[in-house]
């Protein structure tokens, strides 16, 4: 009897303990601890902004620039190695596809370099360390490149230039003349930000080629292509590593900003739902040309920049970490970067961030943009549930 009663109690307890568990689904329930998202809120960026510059290797670019940018003369150097070419198949042409063209006048020159140079040391001022160029005498057999050298490739919807370089190749074949490559440069130097860019040997496609025609066994004309040996562009270098209260982007320039969210009364625990860095005063046309982007691509998420935390803002020891790819957008009619994800790391750094903006394709180009005004930082946040 006792065992029966005991067993009965156990079963009752077991059954009752199997009561409903799991989530309680509620309708028409509000938790006052869960706050709504805020309205768009301005966050103060420090006035202590600056631009930092890092040097880079020019030879790894996938573009070749010629022209003027930030009052700098930019030249393209191409090395050709025509050893595989049968010299009986003249004429020989250099074919280079155009990537962007902002030239006011399509008026370039090309010449053969007669002095040797070192890739690791070459600048627009020096061919080797301590040995300056004399661009008037170090370049010979100068050819002019005009609209007459510009052709349209219907299949690829791209323009390219084609220049007869038969005399260069024949002269190099005569081993008495050293092959130091050729240089392409603009003739008109009156306008700043006046440049043309070509696809380089490092590009995925449309690489520069030496082309020539041959006849096949059926007596048909065939186009033959030979890769070039190397290419790169050179320009004036800048000695300064930092520019206080000036903002440049691209070409090794990183605009650096500082934000302290405490100063805007944004608690370190609050969630930032959206954050935008809004640039209200910049040249959108130059922006597109500089960074090879199209405004129409914003909505597709195809325009991206990097944002990174500046670990040390000492110009002598400039280190960045926490790199985030952020989408460029048009925000309230202005060019803006959506930096929402990046801003979330502020909680790891005491609610304060030094950060820099970098182009998607970093460094080794002359993509460059001057930012006239400090950008605005706007966020939408949510106060976190407490406790």
């Amino acid at each position, binding site marked *: 009897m*006792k*065992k029966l*009663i*005991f067993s009965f*109690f*156990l079963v*009752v*307890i*077991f059954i*009752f*303990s199997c*009561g*409903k*568990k*799991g*989530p*309680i*689904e*509620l*309708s*028409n*329930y*509000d*938790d*006052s*601890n*869960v706050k*709504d*998202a805020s309205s768009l809120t301005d966050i103060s960026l420090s006035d202590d902004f600056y631009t930092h510059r890092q040097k880079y290797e020019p030879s790894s670019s996938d573009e070749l620039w010629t022209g003027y940018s930030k009052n700098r003369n930019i030249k393209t150097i191409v090395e050709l190695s025509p050893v595989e070419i049968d010299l009986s198949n003249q004429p020989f042409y250099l074919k280079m596809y155009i990537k962007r063209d902002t030239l006011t006048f399509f008026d370039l020159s090309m010449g053969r370099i007669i002095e040797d140079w070192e890739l690791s040391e070459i600048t627009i001022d020096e061919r080797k360390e301590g040995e300056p160029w004399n661009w008037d005498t170090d370049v010979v057999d100068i050819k002019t490149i005009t609209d007459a050298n510009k052709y349209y490739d219907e299949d690829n919807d791209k323009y390219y230039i084609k220049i007869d370089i038969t005399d260069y190749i024949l002269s190099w074949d005569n081993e008495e003349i050293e092959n130091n490559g050729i240089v392409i440069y603009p003739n008109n130097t009156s306008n700043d930000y006046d440049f043309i860019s070509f696809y380089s040997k490092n590009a995925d496609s449309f690489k520069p080629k030496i082309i020539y025609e041959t006849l096949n066994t059926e007596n048909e004309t065939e186009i033959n292509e030979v890769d070039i040996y190397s290419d790169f562009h050179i320009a004036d270098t800048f000695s300064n590593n930092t520019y206080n209260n000036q903002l440049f982007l691209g070409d090794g320039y990183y605009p650096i900003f500082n934000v302290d969210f405490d100063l805007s009364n944004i608690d*370190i*625990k609050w*969630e930032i*739902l*959206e954050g935008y860095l809004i640039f209200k005063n910049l040249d959108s046309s130059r922006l597109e040309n500089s960074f090879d982007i199209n405004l129409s691509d914003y909505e597709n998420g195809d325009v991206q920049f990097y944002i990174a935390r500046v670990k040390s803002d000492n110009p002598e020891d400039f280190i960045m970490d926490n790199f985030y790819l952020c989408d460029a957008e048009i925000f309230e009619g202005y060019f803006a970067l959506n930096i*929402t994800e990046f801003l979330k790391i502020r*909680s*790891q750094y005491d609610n304060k961030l030094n950060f820099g903006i970098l182009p998607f394709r970093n460094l080794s180009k002359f993509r460059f943009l001057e930012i006239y005004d400090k950008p605005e930082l706007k966020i*939408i946040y*949510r106060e*976190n*549930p*407490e*406790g």
Partner: protein
Amino acid sequence: MKKIILILFLVIISLNFINGETFLTQYTFGRLNNIGDIRSISMGLRGLSLYDSQNSSTINPATSTYSDDIIISLGEIISNYNINYDKFSEDFYKRNFTTPYFNIVFPSPLKNLSFSAYFNSEINSKLQLKFEQNGEKINELFQKNINKIQFATAYKVFDQLSLSIGGLYLFGNEENKYIINTEYTNSTEEDIWKYKYEGYGIKFGTLLNLDNFTFSGMFRPSFQVDINRSFDDITLESKPFDYPQNLSLGIAYSNNDNFLISGEYINENWSNLDYTSYQTFTMEDLYRYGLGIEYLLEIKKKKNYLKKKISIPIRTGFYYQKGYYNEGNEYGFSLGTSIKPFKSEKARFDLILTIGKKDMILDTNYEETFINFGISFNGRDKWYNTK
């Protein structure tokens, strides 16, 4: 073999339902209505004055001086309750909650000296809410676990008076997780608060036994509890708080045969709780009054022409609690008994059934009606004669 299966069954029940669900931990330190042992609770008491060989409650450690046997008691109470909460548009929700405990009474080989210990997991709550607020899907998961371990020693100063002192260790943790699926950014936000509790306190107990009457008192001064708190794994500033003091008084009358009646008064200063550094708890001083009786019912029966006598303890009690919760009221009627399913007189199971109701104002009106089922295993053994 049957014993092993039985104990295994009990353990499985305990493990399966170690967590309960309650809203009260969000606004208080949980439910404090099941403290002591099953026998005491079934009399509406905590067992302050139960000075006999059946007592396993060590809430007042001075009671341990009576026993010549080592007593262990392992028990669990399962609360099934209905919630009526003004924040819900729906009517009642059924939930359950469990409170396990483990008591040991350990007489020492030295005359009149005894030891006791208990582990009581007063709060084991796990509550998950799902709802929509302003078009956002919100999932809240609240977990809280607070345990107390007590070690105490008691000494019978002379035949009528026992004094005790004990150390108390409070430990536990809490995790509150808020998951917000927001269409605003088409993303999921997750905020997690984590708390770790740890504190040490002392406790004093006394018991005066005058033939049929027993008077008891227990005082636990307030003690400091340290909290290590983090938000999304970021450690935040910690501020300790004072766990409130407890003053408990009891009286019992026994005819030293088959009848026992006992009353208790308990006061805890929860209104002094300064917990605002973490969460806003509005609490009031606790006043608890309990009255219970135990009657040993003897049933005579004949079996196989032999007269047999079965003794079954019948226990009942009532308690009323005012305060603790904001504008809180709580009362409960309880009923209990013991059975001895094994042949040994030194092992028994205590059983309890309690029906009660509590109401308070959390952030709005909150009401619970509850039915508690509980069971404990009590074992006794004599290792040495201390008389």
